[in-house]
Every structure is written in structure tokens, then in C-alpha cells.
């Protein structure tokens, strides 16, 4: 039954008439589903087949409304069915439905062509939004605990909900535009889904930038925000997350920078003050003995 339920629907949202081995699906359904006086076995099984796809596609479209706006309804639906058929859900929660989408889009670029580059950026940001929304929050870093530790020994952690991204497209701006267009939809909690997902008009588009765009997707007062970062700030945070010392992270951050050492030092001071105020910095995983 599970295999039948998870097989993709036809173009007109019905159950496929032909089974995987070429036989009639009707015959397969009759083997285990009883008919009644109104519905035959095929039709009764079809209800579950439709419910499965409408539920998953609805949730998927809600989680990736930016991607849908980039691809348009038809291409998005094709991608969604291919992804869900290939990857399915391996978690008890629908929250994780899109966890493997970035990899899938990279492996199957034909499904998003000619918008693959923008689609990948959008998927990364939209999945980051899921992480930022409800991932764990560790206690913020108490300054007095690290005040006396020299930079070459100090290691800092970052909040699990903080996602650092290097992008080619201004996806944060596109999502802001989408939000202003009133694209936010309310999820249904019902176990039964009575219709397929809603449609939208027009596509979101953006040219790739010549220079990378660095953003942090994070949570503040239980809302998700996108914050642009300078390249050096991104490299610094990224290095800290890998577990290197503060001194090493600063070296990595400054590598290739066109700013003067004095200006970088000044910027770093303000960055750390801001990151502390955002509670991004957490206790170090391990502090080397002095």
C-alpha cells in the first residue's frame, strides 16, 4: 500500500493506471483493498494517493515559496514531484522535508534550468530560514569568562540557529519583495487535504552579482532575519565555526582584504560588539589550558 500511496499522481491528479510491472493498477488494488457500493478498490486507494501528494506538495510549496516564485508554478511542480519521489520524507516531521533539496538541485540541474544558479541560492536561504526558526539556542557568551584568555588560545562557538551563506544572487532582497507581495500562506493542520496547492503569477528574477554576497540568516526575538555581512566578517565567523582560535580566525578574515590593518581592527571591534548584542557568540567548545 505504501508503494502505491507514494507513486506520483498523473497530470490530472489521479492515480496512475499502470503499475510498475506494466499490469493494471486496478488489479493490484483489488488484491488488498475491498470495494464498496460506491467506490472500487482503485478509487479507494486513490484517495490516499492524492492525500499523500497534496499534503507533501502543499508543505513543500510553503517552505520554498521563494523557489516557486523563481521557477514559476509549472517548473516548480515538476521539481517538487521529482524531489519528493527521489528523496521522500525520512523524518517524522515535515519540517525536514527540504533538508536534501540543495543537493538534489545540484545533482539534477536540468530540473531548474535556466535558473539553476538562482534556484540553488534560493534553496540555501529558504532551508537556512527553517534552521534559524527553531534550531537550538545556546547560552550567550559571558564576556568575563574569556576576558583573560589570549587570542591564540581562545575559541568561540556560534549559535546553532545562525547560518552563514555565500551567495551570487541577492536572494534576501527577492524574499523581501515576495513578502511585500503578500505571498505568505497559512499552513493547514488537517490530516485530510481537500485540494492541491495554490497558484501564483509571475516569476522572481535577479542577475548574478560580480562579487559574492555574504549573509547571516539568524533569529532575533523569535523572528528570522537576513543580515548582510562584509567579506571579512563572513570569513571571520566562518573560521570561528570551524573551531580555530580567534587569532587564526582573524588572520583568515584579513587575508586578501584591501582595508588597512587599522580599519580592519576598528571594524572587528564593532562586529564583535554587534555579534555579542545579537547573542551569536557562545561559549567555546573547549578552551586550551593557559
Amino acid at each position: 500500500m505504501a508503494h502505491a500511496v507514494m507513486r506520483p499522481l498523473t497530470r490530472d491528479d489521479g492515480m496512475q493506471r499502470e503499475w510498475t510491472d506494466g499490469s493494471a493498477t486496478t488489479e493490484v488494488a483489488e488484491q488488498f483493498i475491498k470495494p464498496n457500493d460506491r467506490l472500487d478498490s482503485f478509487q479507494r486507494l486513490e484517495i490516499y494517493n492524492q492525500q499523500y501528494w497534496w499534503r507533501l506538495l502543499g508543505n513543500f510549496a510553503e517552505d520554498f515559496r521563494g523557489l516557486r516564485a523563481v521557477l514559476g508554478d509549472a517548473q516548480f511542480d515538476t521539481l517538487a514531484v521529482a524531489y519528493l519521489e527521489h528523496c521522500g520524507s525520512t523524518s517524522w516531521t515535515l519540517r525536514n522535508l527540504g533538508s536534501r533539496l540543495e543537493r538534489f538541485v545540484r545533482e539534477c540541474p536540468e530540473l531548474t534550468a535556466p535558473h539553476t544558479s538562482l534556484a540553488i541560492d534560493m534553496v540555501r536561504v529558504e532551508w537556512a530560514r527553517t534552521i534559524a526558526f527553531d534550531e537550538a539556542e545556546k547560552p550567550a557568551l559571558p564576556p568575563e569568562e574569556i576576558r583573560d584568555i589570549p587570542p591564540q588560545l581562545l575559541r568561540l562557538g556560534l549559535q546553532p540557529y545562525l547560518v552563514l551563506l555565500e551567495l551570487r544572487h541577492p536572494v534576501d532582497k527577492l524574499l523581501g519583495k515576495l513578502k511585500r507581495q503578500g505571498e505568505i500562506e497559512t499552513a493547514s493542520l488537517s490530516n485530510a487535504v481537500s485540494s492541491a496547492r495554490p497558484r501564483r503569477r509571475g516569476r522572481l528574477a535577479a542577475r548574478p552579482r560580480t562579487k559574492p554576497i555574504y549573509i547571516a540568516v539568524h533569529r532575533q526575538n523569535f523572528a528570522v532575519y537576513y543580515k548582510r555581512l562584509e567579506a571579512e566578517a563572513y570569513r571571520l565567523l566562518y573560521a570561528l565555526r570551524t573551531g580555530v582560535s580567534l587569532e587564526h580566525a582573524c588572520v583568515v578574515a584579513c587575508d586578501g582584504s584591501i582595508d588597512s590593518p587599522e580599519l580592519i581592527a576598528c571594524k572587528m571591534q564593532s562586529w564583535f560588539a554587534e555579534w555579542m548584542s545579537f547573542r551569536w557568540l557562545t561559549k567555546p567548545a573547549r578552551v586550551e589550558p593557559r
Partner: protein
Amino acid sequence: MPASRFNAFTDYGIGIGLRIPHYQHILEKKPVVDWFEIISENYMVDAGRPLHVLDQILEQYRVVQHGVSLYFGNADRPNRDHLRKLKRLVKRTGTPWLSDHLCWGSVDGRYTHDLLPMPYTWEAVETTAANIREVRDFLEVPLAVENVSSYAEFHMSEMSEWEFLNEVVERADCGILLDVNNIYVSSKNHGFDPQMYIDAVPADRVAQIHVAGHSKFEKYILDTHDHPVLDPVWELYARAIARVGRTATLLEWDDRIPSFDDVHCEALKASHFLPHEAVAA
């Protein structure tokens, strides 16, 4: 029953489901509601707004957890990581009892996220009861299993749905969350007498009752939870209350959700069917 070991000897009255569109109203207006039912999975997260809102609700209201992903009828044993997360939430909410569905929903690690009907076989009785016992022992909280609405029946079934339910709860020694709307929906889809179902359920195991609305299609009824409760469902509710007594009752409204007041007003219709408590002289 009003108070039993299956609902931790509580005396909860009429509650409604806690839903996102009502968060603001509840937190600002603080309406009088006997209790809220939450969907456990919505709050089995590590942090963020869902838990922040839940904590505020818990400061002022009684909360009971209801789940949609334990899948007692799965062939596989319950997932321990899942149960650990669920137990963390149980400790947070202090839910007096916890419910989930008599169904299956995943196979070989692939989840359908649906409440799929079971073949009513003796083998399934044993497997399902064992899973329920394992979950209850791990969570250390009374469990109630809910009958689901269904749209298909299996050739291999060896008993009726209510016989299957009774066998499972007896072997698992657990409670029942009796969903009278689901009984009505299934009775129309499968052509059985819903009152016979109500009469067959062991009254002393009913820990909670669900009522809800549904949608009628040309050839079947779908359990959509997007309408007020229909009269035939209230009639079944009345019959259930007559059998089991004053029992914690919850209205489910999950789609096309109206205002909080409209939902609460619909839920409070249940009070017309509840026996009035004796007033002390």
C-alpha cells in the same frame, strides 16, 4: 470516564486545539478555556517561537498533548530518538495523558505523514499493542489511542474496526481517545452502524473524546476538520456521553480556521450533552 487511570484521574471539561491563527488572541485576551490540546510535533523543536508561545500558554492554561506521528501500527518498533524528543516535551507541558492514532504511517524509513488504516488482523493486534506498551513505558504517562477515519478496508481483515480497537487497548492496557466524527466518517465510507461502534467500545477506557467537522463528497466523506460539527456527529457524541459519562472533550478545527470565539463557541455546544454535576446542598 470522567476520571480514570487512563487520563490520570483528571476532570477536564471542554477544550479546543491550540492553533497558530489564535496565538495572538489567546495571549492578549486570555479567554477562559478549560484546556488546550496541542499537536506534539509542532513543539518538538529545540527552541524558537513555537516553544516561546507554548511556555506562555502553559503559564495560564492546562495543556494535553496529541500526536500524529507515533504510528503505533507500524511494523517497526518506535523510534527512540523520536521518543526522547517527545518525552522532553511531556516534561515541559506536564500533560496528564498523551494521545496518538491507531494507524500506521511509515515503512522502511519513508514517512507518508498520513494516518493510514490498518488491516484488522490478530498479528496487527499484537504488534500494535506491543508498540503502545513500549511508548507508554518510555514516556511514563498514560496513553490513549484514537480511532482514525478511513476510506479503505482490507480483504485480509479478520475483525471489525471496533473489535480491533478493543483487542488492542485490552492487550496494551491503555486508554481510548474516542473520535466520534471519525466513527461517523468511517461508518458512511464503509457502511456500518456508528451507534454499534459506540456501544461496543469499553466505556471505562475512554479517556477523551474528539468532535470535528467533515466534508461530504459525491461518493465518500473526508475528515477535513474545516467545518462546524454536523448534527449526526453531535448525536453520536450524545450517545457516547450517555455511555461513558462526563468526559474530557475537544473540538478539532484545523483548516479554514475561523476566529477564536467562533471555534470556542462551537466547542462549547458539547456542554449541552454533558450531564450536569450535582450541586452540593
